[in-house]
């Protein structure tokens, strides 16, 4: 509802052509989200309705443990993005994989090193050598002029 309201209020300041589609989608979204909120607060239990055809998350893990693991993996993902920003993909990929395997997955250092080498070879061989994709240098490299 917040997103739809923001979109509709912002779009009002634009010309008709520019605002038409955001309003045509934002207003129904606001109404539908409001209707859903009303149903959740005051509606009856819909036990006969089938579930959404969607993926189902695992439910057999203790909720507190699940929350910890969710926070953990999100932190690792955010850390990987930060690492890419700081040192670029060519350094971030092996560094991330090695540290994840060692610290999170608790794999021995020999296996971690081997798997890291495989990953780096895939990255370099496929993305850099074969497909010749350009990867930006990291913030630290550009700061130090490396």
């Amino acid at each position, binding site marked *: 509802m917040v*997103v739809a309201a923001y979109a509709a209020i912002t779009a009002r300041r634009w010309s008709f052509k520019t605002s038409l589609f955001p309003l045509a989608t934002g207003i129904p*979204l606001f109404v539908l989200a409001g209707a859903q909120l009303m149903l959740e607060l005051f509606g009856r239990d819909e036990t006969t*309705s089938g579930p959404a055809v969607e993926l189902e998350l695992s439910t057999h893990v203790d909720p507190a443990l699940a929350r910890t693991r969710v926070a953990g993996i999100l932190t690792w993902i955010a850390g990987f993005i930060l690492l890419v920003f700081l040192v670029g*993909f060519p350094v971030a990929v092996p560094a991330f994989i090695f540290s994840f395997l060692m610290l999170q997955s608790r794999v021995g250092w020999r296996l971690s090193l081997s798997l890291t080498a495989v990953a780096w070879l895939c990255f370099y061989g496929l993305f850099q050598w074969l497909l010749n994709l350009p990867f930006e240098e990291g913030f630290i490299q550009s700061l130090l002029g490396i």
Partner: protein
Amino acid sequence: MFDALINGLLLVLQWKAFSLMMVGMGLGFVVGLLPGIGGAATLALMLPFIFKMSPAEAFAFLLGMHSVAATTGDITSILFGVPGEAISAATVVDGYPMAKNGEAGRALGAALMSSLVGALIGALVLALAIPIVRPLVLSFGSPELLMLALMGIACITSLSGLGARGQIRGFAMGFLGLLLSTIGQERQSGALRFDMGLMYLWDGLDLVPVLVGIFAIPEIIDLAVRGTAIAGERQPENLQAGVVEGIKDTFRHFWLVVRCSAVGVFIGILPGAGGGVAQWVAYAHAVQSAKDAKDRERFGKGDIRGVLGPGAANNSKEGGELIPTVAFGVPGGGAMGILLGGFLIMGLTPGPDMLTKHLALTFSMVWTLAIANIITVLLCLALLGHLAKLTYIRGGLIIPFVLFLVFVGSYTANGQIADLIVTFIFGSLGYLMVLFGWPRPPFVLGFVLGKLVETYLFISVSRYGFSWLSHPVVLVLIFLTGLVIAYPFIQERRSRKREGVGAT
């Protein structure tokens, strides 16, 4: 015409053209597996290499690559829940749960065989339909394409669950996807919308980081939460037997596969409708073919029909897209637009000449689609057992590699770090959506089609005012859309009646 058909086959079987087709297939195999690197982008990268080739060699190379990518994109969708191609997203919905249930081999076998059947049907239709498809293509203008896109979104919304709540959530997500597609420059006037002062958002949100994030990240989070392999604690299945079972499933549900192939061909023929629509409409058709509400509940939890439908449509669409591209020079989809560049490089003009003077070359494209897919399926069948073993490896070993592929793939969209942040944000959003029961497919389809829908709406209103609403084809599509929206309510009413009868 029969001579041209045989000459077309002989063109493909010449050693140089055949070798180049195999090289293209190898490239397409890898590209299809890698999330984020799309078949269309790779087609563009390969265009400079065709300058020194003959037309038959060039199209064997390009089409070999493109048609195989559509097949192998399903592999990562099933094994890791990460769509290898944008057109393989629907396969994730049932393919990945099958892998989690220890049925990866079966899902892969079904995906490959249905892809092959779809590809062959698409090739056959391409061969037969070119002389007769002209009235169909010319009868679909912007109003009709607009209604088709809206019908596609309605089809997907009907998957959101029975009852008012399910439908409201589905439509809300569809509208959210449409709304987010408006970020960036408005196509008609160039005015900036919702850019928040960020130059990155001037071009809008790119499809690849959004799609990869919203599908892949929730799966990775769930895998981390479970702390097991993708297939859980199950004992490894007999993978080859699973693959054979998947192949048999294709023939057990043969008419579903044929119908979904027809959906793919039809949507492929319509210029601008895109592969994003075909896979979801086919999936929606597979769901709606369920016998009753209880049968329908199996979808999303690893129903083989949820893999067969999109698998067939993704590949049959290729043949369909070639029809307007070759016959009229109107690209059937984004990748076909790039293929048109190939025509120009070869000094060919799509149109009547391709159906008369160069008919053998046109038929060589048909044969390429068929032969490339047959060879790919045969090769993949040899590898599938090994690929399916990946689902039994501990999650802690798989996660860093999948994350690496996901984020490198997202980065290749625009080469900007901001793409990684977008992937993370939409990944987190996708996780919350799954957690609280808000469906992702309507959102994705709304986002994919948003710009097209707005353009078609603008052209329709500018050209026809509001009289386009009374066009015959538009009226038929409005009726069909209404039927699709009403169908879940009808099903729910029936299931309530049945429960009421059962109780008494």
